[in-house]
């Protein structure tokens, strides 16, 4: 497996690019692994990578029903940020930011991390007060933040309507200058290649159809691969399947979890010249938009407010999202929409994730990412690998257990209560 470098590009250019090798192997499953991770998305792949890299556990398989990165890691709006208010979330997502900054070098794969800033617009004095508070909370946790007035917003974001006659006049904004975007597919591919090089077996088109149990203890998985069923035994089994969490856990006999699945839609416009320098969110509704390196505007809003396993949503969300985009940037009204899609979100009951041992012996659960899983990819894998390797959570994810719900200490950033469709 070759190392990617400028020299490798030159060498391959002079030899007609005939000698590039596939980024990862297509191994046959072994009968037994130390750790089996279910789910070949961002979180499963990063978990496998850090298990091998940090903890020296390389006898690992990642079992994926489709192809690697075919789920939410390949269908999100690519935003990376850590502008949270509650300490457990701040500390965890700031760990993720630290890993993002060095990720391309760590993986020897360009994940195109672009810290272009995330700007949250405020439209009322009350909102400015709330953002001042949020900004101060961030600073107390060591996360850089800046409170901007209207003039500073106009200077940073010249395409925006900051006039007093805007539908929702802009008062100011909260900026996290170190936040930004990353290339979502590259994150999955980079972690996959990195894990593969360290000896992890990536088993694509391999669907988990059941769990192997000895008493209550999970000792592996039953898989279906090319129409044939087989057993893969595992010392430890990790589940990182996002929107399919309830479905997969049901196979293990866990019928109820503090999770509901919903659909989140995203949209991409045709490509235009650079107009939007930062990730920008609208404060008089819910809309986030950024411009990809290809020039398309990538944007989304709220989830569809109902349980869903359909990877497509309904039109009321389109109407809301488009109207908010145009309220902020009237000139975007003439753009054409290229495509839209939906991904299944594992909405937890308090809007915060679950990275924990259990709920059954021999099993480890990584779920409840709501619609913020992409930015968490590095820290999620890093913490989940630690939890699997040491049989107990790291300090960074010790609050993200299932027990918090029974103990009455949910981590509810919005204060929305146990209504997962409002987080």
């Amino acid at each position, binding site marked *: 497996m070759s190392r990617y470098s400028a020299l490798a590009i030159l060498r391959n250019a002079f030899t007609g690019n005939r000698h590039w090798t596939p980024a990862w192997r297509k191994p046959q499953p072994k009968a037994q692994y130390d750790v089996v991770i279910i789910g070949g998305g961002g979180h499963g792949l990063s978990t496998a990578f850090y298990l091998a890299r940090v903890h020296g556990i390389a006898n690992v398989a990642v079992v994926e029903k489709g192809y690697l990165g075919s789920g939410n890691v390949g269908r999100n709006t690519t935003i990376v940020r850590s502008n949270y208010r509650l300490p457990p979330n701040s500390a965890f997502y700031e760990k993720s930011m630290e890993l993002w900054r060095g990720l391309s070098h760590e993986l020897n794969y360009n994940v195109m991390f672009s810290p272009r800033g995330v700007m949250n617009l405020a439209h009322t004095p009350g909102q400015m007060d709330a953002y001042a508070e949020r900004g101060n909370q961030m600073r107390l946790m060591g996360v850089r933040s800046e409170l901007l007035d209207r003039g500073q917003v106009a200077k940073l974001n010249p395409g925006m309507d900051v006039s007093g006659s805007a539908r929702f006049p802009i008062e100011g904004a909260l900026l996290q200058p170190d936040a930004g975007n990353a290339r979502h597919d590259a994150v999955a591919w980079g972690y996959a290649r990195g894990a593969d090089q360290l000896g992890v077996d990536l088993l694509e088109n391999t669907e988990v159809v059941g769990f192997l149990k000895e008493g209550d203890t999970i000792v592996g998985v039953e898989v279906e691969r090319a129409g044939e069923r087989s057993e893969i035994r595992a010392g430890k089994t990790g589940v990182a399947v996002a929107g399919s969490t*309830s*479905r997969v856990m049901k196979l293990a006999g866990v*019928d*109820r*979890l*503090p*999770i*509901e*699945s919903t659909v989140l839609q995203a949209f991409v416009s045709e490509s235009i010249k650079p107009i939007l320098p930062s990730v920008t969110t609208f404060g008089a509704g819910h809309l986030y938009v950024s411009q990809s390196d290809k020039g398309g505007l990538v944007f989304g809003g709220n989830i569809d*407010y*109902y*349980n*869903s*396993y*359909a990877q497509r949503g*309904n039109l*009321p969300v389109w*109407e809301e999202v488009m109207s908010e985009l145009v309220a902020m940037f009237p000139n975007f009204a003439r753009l054409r929409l290229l495509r839209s899609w939906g991904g299944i979100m594992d909405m937890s*009951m308090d809007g915060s994730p679950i990275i924990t041992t259990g709920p059954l012996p021999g099993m480890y659960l990584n779920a409840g990412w709501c619609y913020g899983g992409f930015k968490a990819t590095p820290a999620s894998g890093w913490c989940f690998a630690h939890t699997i390797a040491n049989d107990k959570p790291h300090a960074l994810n010790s609050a993200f257990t299932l027990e918090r*719900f*029974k103990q009455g200490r949910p981590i509810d950033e919005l204060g929305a209560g*146990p*209504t997962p*469709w409002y987080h």
Partner: protein
Amino acid sequence: MLLTCPYCGLRDQSEFTYRGDANARRPSFADESIEAHAAYVFDRENPSGLHEEIWNHTSGCRNHIKVVRNVTTHEVVSCEPVGPFAKALKRGRAT
């Protein structure tokens, strides 16, 4: 997605507010088990096929209805009245 309000007829989804799983049953207050009450508040089956759920016709008659819907295909199987007016409606007296 269209839902048939038993009181108002076929209406657009945007007129309704989602109120979640219809099968969450609050344990009796005599039941002092924290697990039972926490399970009622937080734990859900979250099935991928038919789901029984409560919607409120917020921008219409403001009644609650129980919808059975396939959450993977968006197919709406049934919309039944629930709550104080449901019995009256079944007896044919509500409007």
